């Protein structure tokens, strides 16, 4: 009798361990798109559409609203914008047709060195001595995030692989 019990126990152990081994990993709930974003910005043309921003883009948003918004947007934290005062009229920061065509490198140069160094209007001052390279790159990342039509980075490879 004892021996048979022993055998049954052994079988049970085997069955249980097998069952554990085959257990599927628990599914994690899919998080809200905005909850996984560091910050967000309403689309400039459609305020019901919210664009989520990562850390770098959020830093760019901060720098933009401190330094750039005065000439590169039509509404500013202070109300009126300086944009209409200037000729040539500065590009809006979400101006995809103009800015999507420019490389990150070109944008970094024009912010760092100013308009006149790049053969454009001297009204765009150089920010290379006031802003850090990270800050300038973050503004470019923000530009890319809010561009309308959306920005497509050049030579991006299509995802060929999924982890499972």
């Amino acid at each position, binding site marked *: 009798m004892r021996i048979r019990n022993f*055998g049954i126990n*052994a079988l049970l152990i*085997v069955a249980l361990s097998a069952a554990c*081994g085959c257990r599927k990993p628990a599914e994690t709930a899919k998080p809200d798109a905005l909850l996984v974003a560091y910050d967000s910005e309403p689309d400039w043309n459609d305020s019901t559409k919210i664009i989520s921003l990562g850390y*770098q883009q959020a830093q760019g948003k901060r720098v933009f609203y401190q330094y750039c918004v005065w000439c590169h947007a039509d509404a500013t934290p*202070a*109300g*009126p914008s300086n944009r209409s*005062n200037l000729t040539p009229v500065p590009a809006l920061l979400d101006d995809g047709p103009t800015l999507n065509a420019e490389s990150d490198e070109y944008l970094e140069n024009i912010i760092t060195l100013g308009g006149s160094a790049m053969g454009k209007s001297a009204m765009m001052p150089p920010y290379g001595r006031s802003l850090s390279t990270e800050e300038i790159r973050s503004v470019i990342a923000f530009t890319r995030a809010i561009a309308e039509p959306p920005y497509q980075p050049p030579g991006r490879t299509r995802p060929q692989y999924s982890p499972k």
Partner: protein
Amino acid sequence: MPAEEMGKITERMRLVFAVSSLMFLAALAISPFKDYRREWKQYKRSYLRFAQVRPDTKRLTADYSPDIDQIWLPGMNVVDRCTTCHQGITQSSLADKSVPEPFRAHPPIPHNVREWGCTICHRGQGPATEVAEAHTSTLAWEQPVLPTHFIQASCGTCHQSDLPQTPQLARGRRLLAELNCQGCHKMQGIERPAMLGPDLSSIGTKVSREWIYKWLKEPRTIVDKDGNVTVNGYETEEEPRMPKFRLTETELRAFTAYLGVQKAKPIPPYTISPAVVAAWSKNPELISQGELRFRQMFCTTCHSLAVTRAGETKLIGGDIGPELTKVGSKVNPDWLIAWLRDPEGYLPHTRMPRYGWSDEDLYKVTQYITTKLTDSDLLSDVPKLDPPADAEIQLGRRLFVEKGCASCHVLEGLNPQKDFGPDLSALGGKNASELEFGAAKIPHNLVSYIQAKLEDPVSVNPAARMPQYNWNQADLDAVTTALLSMKGPPPTSAFENLVVPHKESSFRATGSFAELYERYKCYSCHKFNGYGGDLAPDLTYEGSRAERQWLVEFLESPQTLRPTLILRMPQFNMSDKDAATLADYISTVLEHPAVNPLTTDAKQFTPAMATLGKQLYEVKYQCQSCHTIGGSGGYVGPNLNNAGGWLTPAWIEAWLRNPQTLVPDSIEPRRNFTDEEITALTAYLMTLRAGIKPQKTAFHTGARASEPGAAR
């Protein structure tokens, strides 16, 4: 027992052993299979397969090992095995969104991920090796990953000083301080200010019992024509500081009875000269003149008024003081006159300056306020309140303490209850099992709890004493972030060393300047050495920037230098002597060490230099894109029409060399000017004196200021 039988049993035993051995062997064989199938090992292998299809396979797999990876920071109680699965975390080539998780690189942040691990910022369970256990809360491991939307809370756990990179956290902390949460709750890094809510010791002399009833019932004062109650009259981003308490009719009557009789320290009444009253009271221009003075004095820099344009009601004006749209139906006219003459006589820590009123102005403006800024329907929904009975007053006094009113409001003879609300200084580190969710149907985690409690305190606890605030989503998230950052004392001494404490800045005005500084409340709007408001320019180094004579003229008749500004410095009606005292102190004490007035002499500038400077300004550097001279130019920087009369040459030179040494957060870009260019530009700017002439009276602004908000 015969040997034959023994042999039989032995045979059987052997068989049993053989079978069970086989079974155990099978069981053991499953163990390596199970091990092979572990979740993290699957991620390890799939990373290898993933790296194979990338062009930089070699670099991606350089530190690959088939084992568990972990970041161990013994001093900080950190054992983070997250990199076991998140293997590409520091691979810059995996930053693109197309890279599947968990292999994507971490975006660049100021901290090195390998040095700090993951859980210090993201929370979750570092030692866990299964996806669910690491990220969500399980029975054994309760701390879930913090949603990235609130991640700034983690910055705030160590950085108790404000960082420019964490605006949401800073806003949350500011709201906690502004809404006086520290009146009831103990919180990390948020100090109790000198005045929380207004002192109510003499509230009975200021407002009627009916008005108190209305206010306590619904502190949002304006209802538009469609019956929509909006916060202070418009869809505002600012939450009024007075929350709504859930009071019954009996409680309302008791409160109003008790508060209505508070007249402990009445402000002495002031009688306007009968000659002035006689001269003006019959004048049909009285009210319009009062309105004009109200605008000319720029009351709307601190106070707002609701304005309806094209069917849309908006508050226009500042938010330092209360909005005044219906203040004429609120306050007692005698109180108003006495208050305007001496605000500190009524409220010791008020931010309202003491103006040098003439009887004439005082009469005109108070008549305007009590005639025009009114609403005859304001108290129409308040029931008839009889003279207060003693029992009501006694109940009101008891309720005042029980409801926690004394935590924010001073009232003669009442002491606040100590620690009225729960201590929140470690709320951000709590596990869900430590929280009371009551009947609320919300996810059981800390973020949901905090948000539910803030939005509707009784939803998680029907007996909650906490009053009702009315948040917009951004403010709610900001306050949640600030609360999540408060995790109590650092868990280890290594952590303690990382904490960047919040530095309290202070400024001690001295001498006769101090008396004027307090009277005009300069610090309500201006910053001095880090202390004060941020509505107006930082005056820490104003003495180096502005010419003394300009300061005197400006103080007597403030002009705005920035064309887009709506809010301007109010007219203080300052005497020549006061203006001179302030200007002397500013010029001699508020100086920047890097600006030496002796190195630059305006006499050295030649017309040729100025001509060159003008060319540089207009052609090479095109400064007119941001600055106005004459009628044209940009709106970004201050106008330079009177630069020569306003700025000291030493300041201009130092500024052109590097604006950020003088004003660290100035947005003027630092240029690479040569010394010759700096001299030429300074010489040019010093010639600009023909601009706005400061005027003793500000009547000329009347036409433009005929409606609120038009003073742009």
